[in-house]
C-alpha cells in the first residue's frame, strides 16, 4: 500500500510526464474572439463636477460588481450598530436587530424560490474639508436590484422602510371598530391606497431603532372611485373622518382619512414590526432598486438612479441604516392590519412546529 506521502509524490510526478507541451502562438482570428469581462465598475460622484450634497463637499466612490446572485439563506441573528444611543438604556439597543433572518423561501412542493440580487456594490462617502483632506463619512453595501422573500423577527430597525398598502374597501372588514365595518360595507369595491413607514407609538415618523411601522401622523388613507362606484364613495363620506377631496354632483372620486396618533377611521394604523414576519421585496418583473445597508457619521444623502436615470436621494441618520426603497414592499389591508405570516425557509422549520 502506498502511504500518503507516496501518493502525493505520484500526484506531482504524473503530470510531469505530460507537461512537455510546446507553446503555440494564437493567430489573429483566435485572438479576435477573446474578450475579457469587465465585472467591476468604479463610479465617482460629488463636489468636483456637480455637487450632490448640500454642503458641496461630499464625494462618493462606488464600486459595483457585475453579478447575478440567487440565494436561499437562514441566519440566527443579524445585529448591527450595537452601541449606546442617547436616550436608550445602556447596553440594550442596536440600530438593527433581526433574529431568524432569511432570504428566499420554500414552496409547498419543496422547491427553493431564491432571493435574487443583481449588481451588488460598496460605496464610500467622503467629507472633504477646506484643505482637501478626505475623511470617510459613510460606507454602504447595496444591491442594484433585489427581489424575493425577506423574513425575520424585526426587533429593532433604523432606516427607511416604505410600505405601499394597496387594497379595496372590503379589506377594512379585518379591522376592529364599527366605523371601519361600516366603511367596509360601503366601500367594498373602492380601491384604497396608503403608505406606511417606521413610526413611534404615537404615530410620529421615527427612523431610529423603531419597533413599529404604521401610517405617520398627517398621512392619509386614500379611497378612489372606480367604475360606477363614485356614488357610493360619496355616500361613504358620511363616515366621520372620511372627507371627499375630489367631488362632483352626488359623486366623489377621491376621499381620504387622515391618520393621527396611530388611528384613522377609528382603527389602529400602527403595528409592531415583529408582526411582519415575511416581506416580499420587489417582484420578478419589477425588482426593488435601492435596497441598502449603510453606516454614516452624520445624516448624509445616498444617491441612486431611478428608472428614468435621474438621481434620487435617500436621506439617512447617523449610525447603521437599512433602506427598503419606495415600491419595494406592497401589502394588502389584511396584511397591513394583521401582519404577514412567515413563509417556510427550512425543510425542517421551527416556525412550522419542526416540520
Amino acid at each position, binding site marked *: 500500500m502506498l502511504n500518503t506521502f507516496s501518493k502525493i509524490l505520484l500526484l506531482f510526478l504524473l503530470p510531469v510526464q505530460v507537461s512537455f507541451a510546446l507553446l503555440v502562438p494564437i493567430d489573429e482570428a483566435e485572438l479576435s474572439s477573446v474578450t475579457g469581462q469587465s465585472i*467591476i465598475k468604479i463610479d465617482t460622484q460629488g463636489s468636483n463636477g456637480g455637487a450632490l450634497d448640500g454642503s458641496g463637499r461630499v464625494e462618493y466612490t462606488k464600486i459595483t460588481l457585475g453579478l447575478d*446572485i440567487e440565494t*436561499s439563506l437562514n441566519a440566527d441573528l443579524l445585529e448591527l450598530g450595537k*452601541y449606546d444611543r442617547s436616550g436608550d438604556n445602556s447596553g440594550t439597543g442596536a440600530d438593527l436587530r433581526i433574529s431568524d433572518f432569511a432570504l428566499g423561501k420554500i414552496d409547498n412542493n419543496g422547491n427553493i424560490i431564491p432571493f435574487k440580487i443583481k449588481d451588488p456594490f460598496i460605496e464610500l462617502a467622503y467629507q472633504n474639508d477646506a484643505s482637501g483632506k478626505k475623511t470617510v463619512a459613510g*460606507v454602504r453595501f447595496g444591491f442594484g436590484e433585489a427581489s424575493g422573500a425577506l423574513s425575520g423577527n424585526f426587533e429593532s430597525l433604523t432606516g427607511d422602510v416604505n410600505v405601499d398598502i394597496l387594497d379595496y374597501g372590503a379589506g377594512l372588514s379585518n379591522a376592529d371598530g364599527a366605523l371601519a365595518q361600516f366603511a367596509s360595507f360601503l366601500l367594498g369595491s373602492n380601491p384604497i391606497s396608503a403608505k406606511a413607514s417606521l413610526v413611534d407609538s404615537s404615530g410620529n415618523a421615527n427612523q431610529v431603532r423603531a419597533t413599529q411601522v404604521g401610517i405617520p401622523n398627517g398621512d392619509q388613507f386614500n379611497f378612489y372611485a372606480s367604475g360606477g362606484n363614485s356614488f357610493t364613495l360619496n355616500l361613504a363620506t358620511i363616515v366621520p373622518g372620511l372627507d371627499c377631496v375630489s367631488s362632483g354632483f352626488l359623486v366623489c372620486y377621491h376621499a381620504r382619512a387622515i391618520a393621527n396618533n396611530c388611528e384613522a377611521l377609528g382603527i389602529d394604523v400602527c403595528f*409592531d414590526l415583529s408582526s411582519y414576519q415575511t416581506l416580499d421585496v420587489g417582484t420578478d418583473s419589477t425588482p426593488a432598486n435601492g435596497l441598502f445597508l449603510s453606516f454614516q457619521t452624520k445624516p448624509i444623502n445616498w444617491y441612486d438612479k431611478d428608472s428614468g436615470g435621474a438621481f434620487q436621494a435617500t436621506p439617512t441618520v447617523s449610525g447603521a441604516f437599512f433602506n427598503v426603497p419606495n415600491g419595494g414592499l406592497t401589502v394588502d389591508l389584511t396584511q397591513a392590519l394583521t401582519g404577514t405570516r412567515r413563509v417556510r425557509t*427550512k425543510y425542517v422549520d421551527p416556525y412550522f412546529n419542526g*416540520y
Partner: protein
Amino acid sequence: MKINIAIILLSIFFVTKIQADLVSLDDAALKNVDGAGIGIVLEDFLYNAGSDVGEGGEFIIGGLAGSQYDGANQEAKLNVTQFYIAGSGSENGSKVEGRTVNIGRLLFPFNIELLNGDDFGIDDKAVLELSAPVKNDATADNLPKAGSQSYFGISTESRTERGGLVGSTTQNTIGSRVSGFRSLDTTIFNSRAAERPDIGISFGVSFDNEIPVENLGLHLESVAVDGSYLRLWGDSGALRTEFSLNVYADNVEVVACDGTGGNCGDSVTFDGFSLEAEFGAGNFQPVTFEVIPGTGANSGNFIFEVASIAGQCSINTSRGSCRDNTAANIATRNKYIDYYENGPAINAYIENVNVGGSDFGSTTISNLQFQYLKVETHNLQ
C-alpha cells in the same frame, strides 16, 4: 517514535526579501508529528511590492468600467502602489522594511494532504486538502487537534414568536437560536504575534489614463487564518470543493486619500474583526466553479455555486417539508436536521465599527447558512 514521513519544508525565496532558516526539531516536537502530506512554513517572510514608475515598473489592474460625475463611460484603472505582507507594526504599510513574519510554524504548518473522503461525507473518494494551521485546543496541551474549535462563545435563547398571524392562539414555533456572542476565545490561535502578518494593498483610481483622482487603501493588522481549508475532489466528471475561510484581524481599515496619496483623513475601521465562513458539505452540498463554454450571450461567465440542498428528502407536498412517515423518510429528514444544527455556517463578529472617528458598536452575524447560492458574473458597461 513512530514517524511515517518527515515533513518537507519548502522555503520559497522571493527575490531578496526572504531570509529562511531551517530550525532543527527537538524530540519533544518531533513526537507530535504524525507525518502525512507536505507542510509549508515560511520563516522571516516579507513581501512588499508596488509600482516604481521611475524604474519602469507599474502594477496596474485595467480594463474596468467606470464613470466620473455621471459622465460618459470611461475605462477605470487601479494603479497598485503597494501590496505587502509583513510583520506586525507595519503601520498600514508605511514601515515594512525589516519587519518579517513567520507564516506558520513547524508544529502548525500550512499543509497539502491527501485525505480519506469518508471522514468528510465524501464517500470512496480521495480528497486533496490545502489547509492553514489547525487551531489550538486550549483545554488540553495547546497542541494541534482535529476538529474545529470556534473563536466564538455563544449565548442562546428560546424562540417565543408565533408562527402564525397576529392574534393566532397557535404557538407552533420551537427550538432555540443564537442570541449573541458572549465571549471570544483567543487561545485557539496558533499564530501568535510572530505568526500574524499585517496585510495590505493601496491603489490609485484613475480614468482614461489620467492621473489618479484618489487613493484607497485596505489594511489588515495582525491577521490569522487558522483552521481555514480547501478540499478538492472529483465526482461525475466535475471538480467539487468545500472550504472554510477563517480570518481574524485586530483591525481592518479602509483609508481614503487624495490622488497624490496625501491628505488622508479619518478612515473606516473594523476593530476586532473575526470571520468563520464554511461553504459546502461534502457531496450533500458541494461547491463548484464553472465557466460557461460556447459562444452564447453568457459564454465566458464565471459561476460560483453552493449546491441547493433541495431534493434530498421526500417532500410532504401539503407543506413543503421533509416527510417523516417511514424509516427511510425519517433518515433523510434527520440529515436535514443535522445540516441545520451542525452544517456549514458563517459567523462574523466585529467588536466596533468606527466611521470617520465615530464609534458604532459591534456587528454580529450568527449561524448564517446558504441552502443555495449561485453567483454568476456578467459584463458591466
